[in-house]
């Protein structure tokens, strides 16, 4: 059973400028995430990363191409994705409640997940009463409660301060390493991509195309702090930045031609 398979995916939106025109957000994107694999999609802002994730999550339809998953994926959204009217525990229980999981079973599972993400003490707090980091832990725990075999994450730590982000990255790896989930993790941060991923998929500026796939050689389990002393860390950082910059330069040329 494969994880996630995206084949020749295109997505266009109606253009805001002219009625006859369309805005191409994704151009012929193909990628594969195998069971138990952690793949990061790295690309500049506006290149269509969220669009890719929303299509993979079934929230939007592809214009062309296909997306296949063995079952409905679970999603961790960018910030503000937890319901402000539910407590931490209720947010985590949400997918179980939708499926009408019996109360006792639900409570037991939520307790496990609260423990896993270190929020047991905050079970009955509302999102407005906890920090941004805790809200994203809640979000992760909710996706784990939903328990799809594919986990989609859209810059879940993007709004956090650097220290909190590193702590959550390490925890995410610890939790994921105990599962066999296929993860598609979206980020605009070079550092985050190579810290987390088995493989980094680099996207170009809009229209988003895949310009490279980079294998990350670090093993598992990973210590993401110790990683930073590894000589390959600097090497891969340089390589990824180079890919992004070359794309940037190409775009500038295009614009000059257009002008």
């Amino acid at each position, binding site marked *: 059973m494969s994880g996630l398979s995206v084949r020749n995916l295109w997505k266009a939106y109606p253009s805001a400028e002219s009625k006859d025109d369309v805005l191409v957000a994704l151009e012929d994107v193909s990628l594969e995430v195998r069971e138990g694999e952690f793949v990061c999609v790295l690309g500049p802002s506006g290149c269509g990363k969220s669009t890719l994730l929303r299509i993979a999550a*079934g929230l939007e339809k592809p214009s062309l191409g296909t997306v296949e998953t063995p079952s409905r994926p679970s999603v961790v959204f960018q910030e503000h994705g937890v319901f402000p*009217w539910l407590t931490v525990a209720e947010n985590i229980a949400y997918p179980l409640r939708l499926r009408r999981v019996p109360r006792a079973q639900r409570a037991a599972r939520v307790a496990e997940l609260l423990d896993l993400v270190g929020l047991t003490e905050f079970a009955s707090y*509302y999102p407005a009463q906890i920090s941004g980091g805790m809200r994203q832990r809640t979000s992760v725990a909710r996706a784990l409660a939903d328990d799809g075999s594919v986990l989609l994450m859209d810059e879940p730590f993007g709004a956090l301060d650097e220290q909190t982000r590193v702590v959550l990255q390490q925890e995410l790896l610890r939790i994921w390493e105990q599962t066999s989930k296929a993860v598609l993790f979206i980020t605009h941060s070079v550092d985050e991509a190579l810290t987390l991923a088995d493989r980094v998929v680099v996207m170009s500026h809009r229209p988003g195309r895949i310009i490279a796939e980079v294998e990350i050689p670090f093993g598992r389990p990973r210590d993401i702090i110790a990683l930073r002393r590894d000589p390959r860390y600097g090497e891969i950082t340089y390589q990824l930045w180079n890919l992004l910059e070359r794309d940037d330069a190409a775009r500038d040329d295009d614009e000059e031609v257009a002008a």
Partner: protein
Amino acid sequence: MTTVDTRVTSDRDQITAQLEDAVRAERGSVWIRRLGPYTPVFLLVVWEVLSRLGVLDARFFPPPTAIVETFIELLVSGRLITDALMTLSRIAVGFVLGAIPGLLLGLLLGSVRSVRLLLEPVFSSLLPIPKVAIYPLLLLIFGLGETSKYVIVAIGVFFYLFFNTMSGVMQTPPLFDDVARANGASRIQRRFTVSLPYALPSIFTGIKLATGGAFVIIAASEFVGAQSGLGYMIWSSWSTFAVSKMYVGIVTISALGYGATALEGLLERRLVPWVKY
């Protein structure tokens, strides 16, 4: 060294004193703040004196003590309680009959664009009709019994709940709907687990406005179409020139309305606990 220290300290004391003065000046006079809560009592005393001296016409403004006397009489005879309960039960039944469809339709129109485009003009055009203006028609249809009162209150309440629920639902950030869909929520489940809780604060605003509206409507309806209730009590006092009794009716209605709104406030704090954070 020591001299410098002293200077700094004395400066500090002086500045602290100045700061205290400044803060006090901003808060306003202590006297005025202490007196605030007693001004209504003071006005009642003035009213009493002026009425007894004949400066105020006691036929229209009987002294408050006379009103209290009438209040006690009506209370002891049981008349006041009967009328108040009558009015309250009409409001309660009418409220439920109007609030539930208002809430459900608000939820539907707020979340389904096509239905909204089709039906909203109907409700918007019915909204400005003064509800008491259709009371004669309701009396024709339902007769002088209780049903006509329930229906007029229900119609009034319906609009408050409907429009407040709809606007609350329409403001729901699309992200929350996405989260629900991504977790496998069906359409119906999304309405009740996302739109409804998101709109709850706005729904409670509707409930409070509807309560005020319901008292106005029921009082007006009881003026003409009833033989009981606080509205009837006020109206019949007018025709018999029992002005004190009229005041008792007015004060009782306002007290009941105030009590109802306070109860709703308590309910709101229980049902919408996340808003206070």
